[in-house]
């Protein structure tokens, strides 16, 4: 409907080893070029790496298929980026696309564009509407939930600070002969600093919010027979995996979701990682390696009753640099492990008796939240659309701060601030201009 470029994760959330991010619009190719090292070719899948230009850091490997209009789903230029299915990776790719000028697609917008460009026939119009309506209703419910309580309070606070500065600057511009006093606002620089801080906190909470909303893929890894499946059962609070004392019982990966401290951990029990000749077991181990690759958090189980084996050490090395928690199991038996060399946080537990499980839960929570403490009373942003809007609002406030610092005319600062307020307005659904006029006339005695 708009002539801009949209982006969204095209695969269902939290499932599968592969995820697809799709872009559509005239800038789809250009934007992809900013974050992908491969050379795009029309209607061909190209291998390369995704990079975060700002940090130059590799995000993931990817197969990218760029398709020029009109032979595409939307009849616009389309790019499909296939990478690992981890929500964290996919969201990072979307965030990069947003930073380079894409807009987060509205519910059903790809289909809508396909329809408007004549790609989908009339009979399908109804289903387009259904998609939009269904997703809109879901989105509305979610928005209402998200805006209830703390988040709405925190947003409103930031919005009010920005409105105050904007009202002051606007009153100065539109009523140049009135004596507009800044008392209500204080120093605009300070106020913007405060607003930026609030938005930063909110944005930071978005990371945690996504974790609470989308869950964390957690691979339970370890040598055979260290008690991975017992631990899984303990975490799930029910018998799921087949537990036998025979090493190598778990031939397949099992995926279950455990709610730990409010965070949905999708626990992937992997076949014990061990060199083996058994063909069935080898297949299971292949799956395990893949599970490790797509996990956000690794839970490495070792046998705490005996010394670390070479295999344990190798697994620890493989997990290096990834969010990892080590569970030293069987601590109800004699403690035989020297864990002082292990860099990752360690919990001594007994999957059998449940001893030490609280400590493990705390470590898992912290690993899921990127090492930060759990947000206690901080408001949580759980909607990716809100997170994207917050990011834009923050970028605009930063631009406004830069403008003030560089001595740009007030007008330029107001332009950045309106962009920030518009972005927040997308979350709150509030008309920005009306709110601005209300603020001007309630705070400043202007007009002749």
């Amino acid at each position, binding site marked *: 409907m708009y002539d801009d470029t949209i982006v969204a994760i095209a695969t269902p959330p939290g499932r599968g080893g592969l995820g697809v991010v799709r872009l559509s619009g005239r800038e789809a190719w250009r934007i992809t070029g900013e974050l992908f090292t491969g050379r795009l070719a029309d209607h061909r899948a190209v291998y390369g790496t995704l990079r975060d230009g700002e940090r130059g850091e590799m995000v993931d490997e990817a197969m990218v298929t760029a398709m020029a209009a009109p032979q595409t789903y939307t009849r616009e230029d389309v790019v499909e980026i296939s990478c690992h299915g981890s929500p964290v990776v996919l969201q990072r790719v979307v965030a990069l696309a947003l930073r380079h000028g894409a807009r987060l697609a509205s519910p059903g*917008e790809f289909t809508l564009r396909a329809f408007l460009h004549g790609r989908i026939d*009339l009979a399908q119009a109804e289903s387009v509407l259904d998609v939009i309506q269904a997703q809109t209703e879901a989105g509305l419910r979610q928005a209402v939930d998200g805006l209830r309580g703390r988040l709405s309070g925190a947003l409103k606070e930031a919005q009010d600070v920005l409105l105050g500065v904007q009202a002051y600057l606007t009153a100065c511009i539109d009523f140049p002969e009135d004596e507009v006093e800044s008392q209500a606002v204080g120093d605009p620089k300070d106020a913007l600093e405060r607003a930026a801080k609030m938005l930063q906190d909110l944005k930071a909470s978005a990371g945690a919010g996504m974790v609470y909303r989308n869950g964390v893929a957690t691979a339970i890894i370890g040598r055979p027979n260290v008690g991975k499946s017992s631990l899984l059962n303990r975490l799930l609070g029910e018998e799921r995996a087949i537990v036998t004392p025979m090493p190598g019982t778990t031939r397949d990966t099992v995926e279950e979701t455990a709610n730990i401290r409010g965070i949905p951990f999708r626990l992937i029990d992997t076949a014990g990682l061990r060199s083996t000749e058994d063909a069935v077991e080898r297949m299971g181990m292949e799956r395990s390696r893949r599970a490790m690759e797509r996990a956000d958090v690794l839970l490495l189980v070792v046998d705490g009753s005996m010394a670390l084996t070479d295999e344990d050490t190798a697994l620890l090395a493989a997990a290096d640099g990834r969010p990892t928690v080590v569970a030293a199991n069987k601590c109800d038996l004699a403690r035989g492990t020297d864990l002082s060399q292990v860099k990752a946080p360690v919990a001594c537990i007994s999957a059998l008796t449940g001893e030490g499980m609280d400590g493990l839960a705390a470590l898992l929570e912290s690993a899921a939240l990127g090492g930060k403490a759990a947000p206690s009373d901080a408001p949580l942003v759980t909607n990716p659309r809100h997170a994207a809007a917050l990011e834009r609002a923050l970028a605009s406030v930063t631009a406004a701060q830069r403008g003030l610092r560089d*001595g740009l005319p007030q007008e330029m600062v107001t332009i950045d601030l309106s962009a920030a307020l518009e972005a927040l307005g997308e979350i709150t659904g509030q008309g920005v201009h009306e709110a601005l006029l209300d603020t001007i006339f309630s705070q400043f005695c202007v007009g002749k």
Partner: protein
Amino acid sequence: MYDVAVIGAGHAGCEAALAAARMGCRTLLLTMNLDTIALMPCNPSVGGPAKGHVVRELDALGGQMARTTDRTFIQIRMLNTGKGPAVQVPRAQADKRLYMLEMKKTLERQPNLTLRQATITGLARIPPTAPAAPPGADLWPRPAFHLTSHTGQAFDAKTVVLTAGTSLAGRTITGNATLAAGRAGEPPALGISDALRAWGISLGRLKTGTPPRVDARTIDFTQTVMQPGSATPISFGFYYGDMPPGWVLERNPIYPAGPETPWRPQLPCYLIHTNAATHETILRNLDRAPMFNGAITARGPRYCPSIEDKVHRFRDKPAHGLFLEPEGWETNEVYVQGANTSLPEDVQIEMLRTIPALARAEVMRAGYAVEYDYIPPSQTRVTLESKSVDGLFFAGQMNGTSGYEEAAGQGFLAGANAALHARQRPPLILQRDVSYIGVMADDLVTHDLVEPYRLMTSRAEFRLLLRQDNADLRLSPIGRELGLIGDARMEAVERKRWQIDREMERLPRVFVSPAAHATLESTGAAALGRKVSALDFLRRQDATYNTLVSLGLGDLTLHPDAAISVEVAAKYEGYIEKQRREVERIRRLETWAIPRDFDYAVVTGFRAEAREKLMHFRPATVGQAGRILGVTPADMSILVVHLERLARSAPLTHSPASL
């Protein structure tokens, strides 16, 4: 039969009639009183933020207000210098009588234009001209209008532009004294409201006010702060050469003269302040204030609060600034800007006399509030044509706006569209990214008013593109198409555009050296570290085009407005580019028409609020729909799916969507 009949000769009516007549239409301008043409019943000033932009735009389109103001002002100043390129704008103090005389003269000398004094009491439709009409009769295939006056005069017209201002069922209020009146001392226009109601047009009620005028002989000017006019030439009109001479009368010696301004004699204004005693007087008499005791119920404008409202709402504020503005070169009447009030006269006098400069002040006219009917513009198209009555246009204060400039801008739009309608040509639509007039028209038809509408720069989301220095580049091509801008002037506009383009190509290729820059002691600018292109140099916040001129790198033949355009283009390139991109992004929505008969009731999927709002405003385009409060992006998606479905299912039967 006239092509266009304009009822009312205020600021909207004058522009409407001139635009229609200049477009070659047989035009009739009707007024209740030929002596009050282009009256300024409130403040004696023209321009200021957004309003001044409209005046510049009117000139660029071929309108009149800018030139009449330039010829008759007693003072002009540039406001908001230093606050940004797009909010800088002139404001002038007019000589009220000269303005009226000058406008009347312009109307009287305009070919195709007939000026008649008549109070219209009847407004009716007549059937289309029969094909068997006598030879020489106008053929008009649509219903026309039949206008009758209270003395029995009758006029027929193909189109009518109604610009009745505050005179529709007007009522003025000063304390307990209430009078049926359009403006102080004038009868209200009755009868027209009834005709409109009969056509199913609903009316709302608004309120505004004006301050008292005091006798200059009773002001102690030594207790005021003088506000002189601009030392350098400023104008509203685009002249591309010498500015035409102003109409300067002998200065009334009662006014202390300001500093000499050799380019044009000017008269200062004078600043004073209220104090605790003033506020005490007002608060003590609040029960006698019609705004507070319930005598006035209609909503007044928040941006133009009465002095009683200001004092009441901002009790902590120790003083409010007031400007004493002479209403002309010769008159003793001084307008007390900022003191608009409907308090009883005795309180007005007592209140003013608490201010040292006004301790002996005599009021010549008391302030008053006026309540009047307006036509909620959800019933009006963005062309200012009525949605329900074909060929009937509304402009000015009766659309719920306030301000001479807003009225004039709408008058032009309505007049031009009435002329186009009479010629059976497609209408003129001014988009939001092209003009403030367009912003105003669009705001009016997509929002319900809670107070009289005033333009502000903050209402224009693309204001960096809507600058006063480029109004001609934006709009003169449109004026040209309407037949309002002549060859010579259009050449001058295009020459200016060409000059800007050429300069933008030249500047990256000439360089400023640190040594040369160091010779500029007067600029106080930070030293230059290395050689930079003139374009990069202009990007510095402390550099202006004049700095380049001082360095010998400027183009002296450049038009002053072109120099501003160049400077702005260099300095704010990133911001301007962003707004351009945004305009591109939404352009499709702005031209995506919704059929007039689109049935929102049968469309499933809208949220209840959105459906109700869409049915209320009946937007002409998808872009307009999106600006209606309560219509979400999801509702817009639903709307466009249905529009597309309609277009595919009935491509030949549904009328080509028109605005």
